[in-house]
């Protein structure tokens, strides 16, 4: 009866504040709705000022064309020869970045060095800085790929000229072998001469781009060196015969024949593969194996539920005992036949029911209006929130037993809220925190609840043992601590 008296008092206290209830249910819902409606998945194009030296102005159109092809991630706002002028535009806020084009970039590359583009910006936000770095890297990678693809395309056109020579070389090699096998030394000499002429033609025309052909087959030497080696082996052939039987030279020519055929095949392959594939031969695709598709709003929904429940439970509990003390009620309770258990269990009961009403409203809105997925069981979904509420109430009661005033209680609740935003995995993944710092994360009830809620809602998983131990066991420990602290307080009231 005494426990129910406390529970009823706290519940009536909450229910008699309809505006508070409405704020707690509708507030987070509206915030999430606004976030979903207003969040831009991709940032707007970066407005850049190009700094190009006078002698490179002829490159400008080409650069602008290339930048224009980058999914509009960088838009050239203005072009100037003066870096100072560009920086002034940046400082005035009329541009997001200044791109300093290196002088004679192609000449630098031909000289064997990288042509370094410098991107200057004035963004303080570390996340935006990272975005700028990624955008710049993506832009330069894309431009590099385009340049390479163009080079390869040229290479493919040029190597097409080798085809007749390679065919002729292969035919000459066959004729050479036939002559050798027939023991016709004179014919063999003539065919060797023809074969050497064809290979020399290829050797003279081969370009550095042809090395890409070799890269298609890791075991092969580069094409030009391969052709040179073939020529050397053909020149070294001993064309003399013994008793009209095939010599070792014929065997060697058979090998050469096969190598020419192989070279012919590889070249054909090189010419038929798209340049884009050759530039980026490896690609990656990611696939989510969870049973539901999770949007950004869905992803943050468990965090909003958990954060709200934890914060209101901690605040209610933290304020509760302080308020009783400042009111003088603790002194009355100390004289009345009620113990810390009556007070605490009653308050746990009242606040849990109150938080349950709020959670029911918020969950209904999120699951029906936002259609946030719930792949797991409703029982697990509710149980996690119940455990979170109990653990958070425990934190609140411990705070309430330690602090002396309302202000201290509110400040302590705010500090837990801040800790929760940064360390619970609400915004930042826990993997990004040092293991030592993660201790703080795991001390917060929300960390366990959030992890478990996401598992239940998006993966359809059951509540894991760690959550039971952390939230369930934690609740019991916090209750025991609150009870001890309260007994001391009530005794000293």
């Amino acid at each position, binding site marked *: *009866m*005494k426990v*129910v*008296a406390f529970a*009823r*008092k706290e519940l*009536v*206290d909450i229910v*008699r*504040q309809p505006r508070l209830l409405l704020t707690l249910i509708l507030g987070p819902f509206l915030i999430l709705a606004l976030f979903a409606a207003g969040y831009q998945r991709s940032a707007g194009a970066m407005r850049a000022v190009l700094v190009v030296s006078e002698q490179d102005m002829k490159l400008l159109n080409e650069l602008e064309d290339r930048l224009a092809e980058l999914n509009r991630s960088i838009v050239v706002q203005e072009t100037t020869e003066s870096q100072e002028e560009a920086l002034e535009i940046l400082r005035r806020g009329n541009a997001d970045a200044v791109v300093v084009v290196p002088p004679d970039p192609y000449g630098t590359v031909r000289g064997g060095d990288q042509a370094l583009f410098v991107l200057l910006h004035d963004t303080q936000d570390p996340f935006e800085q990272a975005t700028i770095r990624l955008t710049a890297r993506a832009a330069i990678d894309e431009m590099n790929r385009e340049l390479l693809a163009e080079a390869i395309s040229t290479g493919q056109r040029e190597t097409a000229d080798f085809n007749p020579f390679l065919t002729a070389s292969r035919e000459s090699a066959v004729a050479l072998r036939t002559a050798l096998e027939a023991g016709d030394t004179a014919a063999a000499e003539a065919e060797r001469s023809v074969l050497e002429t064809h290979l020399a033609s290829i050797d003279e025309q081969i370009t550095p781009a042809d090395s890409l052909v070799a890269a298609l087959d890791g075991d092969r030497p580069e094409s030009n060196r391969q052709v040179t080696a073939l020529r050397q082996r053909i020149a070294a052939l001993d064309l003399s015969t013994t008793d009209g039987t095939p010599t070792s030279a014929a065997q060697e020519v058979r090998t050469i024949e096969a190598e020419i055929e192989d070279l012919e095949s590889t070249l054909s392959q090189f010419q038929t593969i798209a340049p884009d594939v050759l530039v980026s031969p490896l690609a990656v695709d990611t696939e989510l194996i969870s049973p539901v598709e999770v949007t950004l709003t869905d992803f943050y929904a468990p965090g909003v539920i958990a954060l709200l429940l934890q914060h209101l439970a901690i605040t209610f509990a933290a304020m509760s005992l302080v308020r009783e003390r400042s*009111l*003088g*009620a603790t*002194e*009355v*309770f*100390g*004289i*009345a*036949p*009620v113990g810390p258990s009556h007070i605490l269990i009653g308050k746990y009961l009242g606040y849990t029911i109150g938080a349950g009403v709020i959670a029911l409203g918020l969950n209904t809105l999120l699951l029906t209006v936002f259609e946030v997925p719930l792949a797991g069981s409703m029982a697990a979904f509710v149980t996690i929130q119940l455990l979170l509420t109990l653990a958070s109430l425990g934190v609140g009661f411990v705070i309430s037993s330690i602090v002396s005033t309302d202000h201290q209680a509110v400040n302590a609740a705010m500090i837990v809220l801040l800790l929760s935003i940064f360390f619970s995995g609400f915004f930042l993944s826990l993997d990004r925190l040092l293991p030592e710092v993660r201790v703080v994360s795991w001390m917060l009830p929300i960390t366990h609840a959030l992890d478990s809620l996401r598992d239940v809602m998006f993966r359809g998983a059951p509540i894991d043992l760690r959550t039971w131990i952390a939230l369930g066991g934690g609740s019991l420990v916090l209750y025991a601590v609150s009870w001890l602290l309260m007994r001391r307080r009530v*005794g*000293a*009231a």
Partner: protein
Amino acid sequence: MRFTEPPRWVPVVHDQRGAFLIEQQRHGHPNEPAINARRASKVFATGDGVHDMDLAVPSGSIFGFIGPSGAGKTTAVRMLTGAIEPTDGQVTVLGQAPTSFDHRTRSQIGYMPQLSVLYDNLSVADNLKFFASLYGMTRRRTEAARNEMLEFVDLGDHRDKRVTELSGGMRRRLSLAATLVHEPRMIFLDEPTAGIDPVLRRRLWDHFTEMRDEGRTLFITTQYVGEAAYCDRVGVIADGRLIADETPDGLRRAAFGGDIVHLELEQPLSTDLIRDISNLVSATACQPYSMRGLRIVVEEAALSLPELTTWLASQGVSVAQAEEHMPPFDDVFVELVEEYRAATTDTSTEGERVVA
């Protein structure tokens, strides 16, 4: 009356007797004091608090505890209710040390702190229900007691109002109702009538008297000195020390050294006549207050008055008026406190002189 040391006429309960009383009370002896304090002190770090309080409040009586603001009234009440532990001495209430009241004793105590302990968002009726529930009262009993209390404190028409909608006086009355709703046997009320209009105050005191007549014990602190008249015994506290513990009449005598008689003659007073009157009634003080008026402090007015009027008639002195003067308790209180302070100042000055 001058004090050279803390008043000696404060009743001191002797060790053996005190031990006996405590033992008897534990077994529920009906005639033993409900409250016993022997040299009970609660001294805070600043040196303030209550010092060496000796007290014996009989069961079924009203004990008024009067003192200026900051004198230690609330500290004394908190010590008696177990909210704070004495730093020295011994306190028992209903036969038990307050810091270790058992469940049964707690159920028999009602405590109304100086500040109203009420929940703003709860209605008048809900507040009463909550406090009744703390004492494990059944729903039916709560309902009956709640209605009775609401009528008693004149809040029957406001039962559904929230506390935020009540005036200061109404809150005080509700707080009193919350203290009494479980029908306690031992009641501590810390300034229950503060902020309550005189008509209702009178009603409350009538009700306190009724409760006393039912055998309950009331320990009431008040700043309304006049309310001392309603009490069976009155304790006066100043600077943390209990300087008087008397019946209301005894308090008057203690303040002025005896009963006061006002004598108004038809003729002017002469020095010889004043001396003769003083000698006749063995007056402790005899002071003219006008040409024909004389204030005489005597041992007992009821005996001295007939003796005086008879003698004056035999002397041919016409008496316009002769009556016992009942000084208001405000004067009694001021007199007691001032005399105590003067005495303690004298004592400390003398002490300094000796040391010097």
